[in-house]
Every structure is written in C-alpha cells, then in structure tokens.
C-alpha cells in the first residue's frame, strides 16, 4: 500500500472549510448553493485504497453535514459517490489499461469532463432526492439537480484549472 498522500489530507480539510465557510453562503440566483467539496474525489488518486476512500467520503459528508447543520443528506450522497467512484472511473476513462493513476495524470479532456459531470450529477441527484424525499417534488429535484450541477461544475472547473496537468 502506498503511503497516504498528503494532498488528500490537505484537500479534505481545505475543501470542507471552503464549502462551509464560503460556498454555503454563496446563493447563486438566490437559491443555488454550489458544491465544491466533490473535488476531493478528483484529488484522491484513482489507484489509492478504496476502503479508505469510503471511510473518508463518509467523514467528508459527515463534516459538511455537521458544520452546515443540515440533515444527513450530504453524508449519504457523498458516501454513495465514494462507493461507486470505481464504476464512474471505469465508465469515464474506459475499462482498459488506459485507466490513469489520478485525475491529473490524464490529458483526455472529454473523459475528464464525463467523469466530473457524472460525479456531480449523481451526487446532486442523490442529495436532492434525499432532501425532498417525495415523488411529488420530482420537478424540484430535477430542477435543483441540474442548476446546482451546472454552477458547481463551472466552479470546479475553474478550481481544477489552477492545477498543472502532469504528463
């Protein structure tokens, strides 16, 4: 097992703080709260320990829930994303030797985009499904999911663009 990368710890702490202190107070179009902490699944290397990732994603969602005083929706959504991340990676980057070691070691833009979109969309869909938790609110669930996903993706893209792509 490889040594636990420092970047994960740092990104974990920074992302939680950024989400809770900055982005939770950012009300785009008055209602939309962009999600930034999903970048953790980008920084966490693809070939790193999956069991640890599940535990960490639980912790991540739990911290967000605790600090933003929401219910358990973040926890459930983030935990599930942590669990299904290998499938998302396989879907986005292909199920061959081409699977990169981390998000930044790859330079296929379309695959990266698919990965991000899947990550955010699934997370938001789960999140809003749990928050509304009613079939009558289907319209609200879909609307909120799409809008928040778009805004979050833009913000995440800007953040990622600060990182250099390694060859």
């Amino acid at each position, binding site marked *: 097992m490889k040594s636990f990368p420092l970047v994960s710890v740092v990104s974990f702490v920074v992302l939680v703080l950024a989400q809770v202190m900055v982005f939770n107070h950012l009300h785009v179009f008055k209602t939309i709260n962009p999600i930034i902490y999903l970048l953790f699944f980008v920084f966490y290397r693809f070939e790193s320990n999956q069991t640890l990732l599940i535990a960490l994603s639980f912790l991540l969602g739990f911290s967000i829930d605790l600090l933003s005083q929401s219910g358990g*929706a973040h926890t*459930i959504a983030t935990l599930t994303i*942590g669990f299904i991340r290998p499938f998302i990676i396989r879907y986005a980057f292909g199920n061959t030797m081409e699977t990169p070691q981390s998000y930044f070691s790859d330079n296929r833009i379309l695959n990266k985009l698919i990965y991000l979109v899947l990550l955010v969309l699934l997370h938001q869909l789960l999140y809003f499904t749990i928050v509304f938790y009613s079939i009558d609110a289907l319209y609200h669930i879909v609307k909120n999911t799409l809008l928040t996903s778009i805004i979050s993706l833009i913000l995440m893209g800007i953040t990622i663009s600060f990182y250099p792509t390694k060859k």
Partner: protein
Amino acid sequence: MQRILNALLQFRNPILYFFLLGLSIAFSFNQSPFHQYTIEKYGFYFSTKIYEIKDGLSHYFNLKKVNQQLLEENKQLKSRELASPLIPLYPEALEKPKRFPFKVKKANVLKNSFNNKRNFLTLDMGSKQGIQPEMGVISKNGIVGVVHSVTPNYSNVISLLHQDLKINVRTNKSPAFGSLVWSGKNPTEFLIEDVVSNANISVGDTIVTGGMSSYFPLGIPVGKITKLEKIQGSGYYSIEASLLNDLSQVYYVYILENIDFQELQSLKKKLPQ
C-alpha cells in the same frame, strides 16, 4: 473461520459502505422529523399489509366461531324485537305495553324437505335444551312451522309446507283474520282461507301472524297478498299469498317458547266441550 474472514475482507468495501450508509440514514432520519415521519409511514404501510394478510387468514379460520356468535347475538336481538312495544301491530288502544310471553331459542336445521305434500324439518335441539311439542318456529324472514315431536337431542318440526298445518294470520291493516294453508305446489305459494268478504284488504298487503294461537305472537311478517277474489255467494275471500321466507333456504331457526303454554292449555280444558 479463515474463510469467513477472507470473505469479509474481500467484500470489505460494500460492507463498509452499507454499514456507513445505515449509520448516516439513522443519523439523518433521527434529526429530521419529516424523514422520520416518512420512514414511519412506509413502515406502517408494510406492517399493515402484513397484518391484513394475517388477519384475512385467521378470519377465514374463525368464520365458524364468528357465525355462532352472530347467531347468539341475533337470537337476543330477535327476542328483543319481538318483545318491543314499538311494533305498531300491537293494538294501540290498549295503551300500556303488552306482556310478551315468549322466550327465543336458536337451533340449526339438520334436515329440511320441501318436495312432499307433508314436509318436516329436523332441528339439532331437543327436550334436553327445553324444546317441547307445539312451540312455534321462525326464521329471520318469517315463520317456519311448529314443533311436532321431540327426542332428547333433536326435534321434528311440521313445516309450513304441510297441507294440514293452518296458521292464524291477519293483514297489517285490517284486523280480519284467516288461516294460512299451503297450496301444495310451490314453496312460496299459499292460500288464505276463511277471511270474511267485508274485510278491508287489498293486493300487496303484508300478512302477519294473528296472535290467536299459542305458537306465535302477534305481528311476525309472513308474506304478501298476491291475488284477491270474492267467492260468489259464500261471503268469503279467496286469497293467494306469497311467502317472504323461502323455506327451501332455511339453515337456522329460532324457536319460540310460550311461557304461558300450560296456563293456556289448562284454560282450554275448562271450556265446556
């Protein structure tokens, strides 16, 4: 043990995921009353479904017992209904409620015939249960017959479908009385004899028991007049009536025990022959 551990290690990710998922669901649903309520609603829905199935099964197996209970209840209600002073057929002129000298017992019909000219029913109650000859027998829709003979556990009832049985009847409107006799053809076709032709009766009138015998109290509905004809030169009506009660479909009956029976008999004996 090694294999169990291996399996656990192999599936550690899903196990960890579902464990944490359960934890977070419990955590979130404990916090939010809305989610708690929704979960409870689903739980309630499923538990009621299960109980419904269980209930349906146990109800089915309890049907016999429930039937018995209902019969018992009906017996009590019937005796109250018959004793009720509210039945408008009791002569209002008498003002104070009439004494009701009948007790009600229930019995099941073991054998019933309706094909012969003289039909009998067999009941599963006898002298041990206090059944005596010459007690009236009614069912939920009307009268059935009169007890003819009893053994310790069974009794024989002369059915209304018996050419020699005559029941004292009247209509609910007119006090003119007559005798109900079976015509011997159809289980619901009856004749009413000896009604004087100046009585004010019409087709469709309800026939009720006349209360002049010791078998039945006044006012038990029996049937309806279907045909009315004056017999020329005799001063009597020829009346045809249909029975409310289908005597081929009688499965349980109520037996009317007249408390004053002995008294009435002794009074009869004192009459000059």
